[in-house]
């Protein structure tokens, strides 16, 4: 509880200034006390709710899971295309539009990813990446409740992503909630296995995931080819 209130104080402070890191703290993580509290909460929620639900979902036969993955992938492709255009990657954006056309029709409402087999590669874009290519800095690291690692820029991006998300536009509440839930569980299930590996690899899981997020986002922003710099500490 004290960690939370200290974190909240940091949050308030950091809106004005970023100097809230304790001695030896990570320069990009001035809100570490708050983030650690949220991280612990997420970890517990995952252990007792999300992971067990995902494990049950995992019994679904593979072809159906693939269909679910393709369906939500197709729903996301239009927004990915918009972001590619916003980043000036017009060809990629057009290709994403082509993917939606092909997969929504020949691919039967997106259940089959015919476009990939036709050579239209799936991309990975979101508003946070677009903001980054426009030169927006990432701001302090943030662990979001239930959603996990993020930062100020990517949180703003996420709000934009959700506004444009077709699932969130569904009028009927029951359908919208079911689709949101299914997508969440499907994503969590796809991380089964990887989560055990992280559990084994990490000494301090919080720090491991934070470092992971920084490198992962940098790679995404550079479309899988971040600048390769010779490590100054490698000699």
């Amino acid at each position, binding site marked *: 509880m004290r960690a939370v209130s200290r974190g909240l104080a940091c949050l308030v402070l950091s809106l004005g200034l970023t100097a809230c890191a304790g001695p030896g703290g990570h320069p990009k993580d001035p809100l570490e006390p708050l983030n650690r509290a949220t991280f612990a909460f997420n970890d517990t929620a995952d252990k007792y709710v999300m992971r067990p639900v995902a494990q049950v979902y995992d019994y679904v036969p593979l072809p159906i899971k693939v269909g679910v993955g*393709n369906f939500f992938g197709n729903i996301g492709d239009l927004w990915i295309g918009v972001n590619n255009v916003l980043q000036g990657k017009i060809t990629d954006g057009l290709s994403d539009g082509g993917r939606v056309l092909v997969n929504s029709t020949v691919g039967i409402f997106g259940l089959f*990813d015919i476009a990939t087999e036709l050579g239209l590669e799936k991309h990975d874009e979101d508003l946070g990446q677009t903001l980054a290519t426009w030169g927006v800095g990432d701001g302090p690291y943030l662990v979001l409740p239930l959603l996990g690692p993020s930062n100020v820029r990517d949180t703003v991006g996420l709000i934009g992503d959700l506004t444009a998300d077709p699932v969130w536009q569904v009028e009927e509440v029951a359908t919208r909630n079911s689709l949101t839930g299914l997508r969440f569980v499907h994503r969590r299930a796809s991380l089964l296995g990887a989560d055990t*590996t992280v559990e084994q690899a990490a000494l301090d899981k919080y720090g*491991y995931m934070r470092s992971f997020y920084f*490198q992962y986002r940098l790679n995404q922003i550079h479309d899988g080819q971040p600048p390769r710099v010779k490590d100054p500490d*490698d000699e």
Partner: protein
Amino acid sequence: MNKIASLLAALALSFGVQFNALAVDATAPDALVKSVTDDVITIVRQDKAIQSGDTRKAVELVETRVLPYFDFAHMTRLAVGKDWKQATPEQKAVLTQELKTLLVRTYSNALTQYRNQQIDFKPLKAKPEDTDVLVRTEVRQPGAKAVQIDYNLEKLADGWKVYDVLVAGVSLVTNYRDDFGKEVRAGGIDGLIKYLKDKNKQLDTPATAKK
């Protein structure tokens, strides 16, 4: 006479070594990665024990088929970062051994989760005289975006060695750096050694060895 005998013995030995090395094409870095990957996947596909989660067999496979092509001293140096310089040769050796144990254990276990995913090898972008290259691969899986796995290799006297592995752009080595740095600041190099040893001990106990 003695000299000739030892020469013959050396010759015979080196033949043996060369014969063993023939299984893996080590001439080019991308060919090496492909060769080792194909080798390991072929074995995992046939081994029911590894598929059902037999960590010990997976570790054995990694130790015999993969480890000879990894440079763990270089890896540990990268993971520790700037504090590496202040470690004594003995401390460096212990750190390297402990990190090796941790990485081998963790990623051998990951191998038991392999389920027929297809691995694509990207064309190598390097000049023939390069001694430090990035070999790029992609693991394709139905219903999801492919996962990028890249290998950093360095050319040493005894051939190409992997010194970093990046999954989705995340280095499995430098990802430790913040954490290790914090431990060194708190308890010096010996503190870091103890930290790693405790982690490895904890992985040894069956309670945490599930799945």
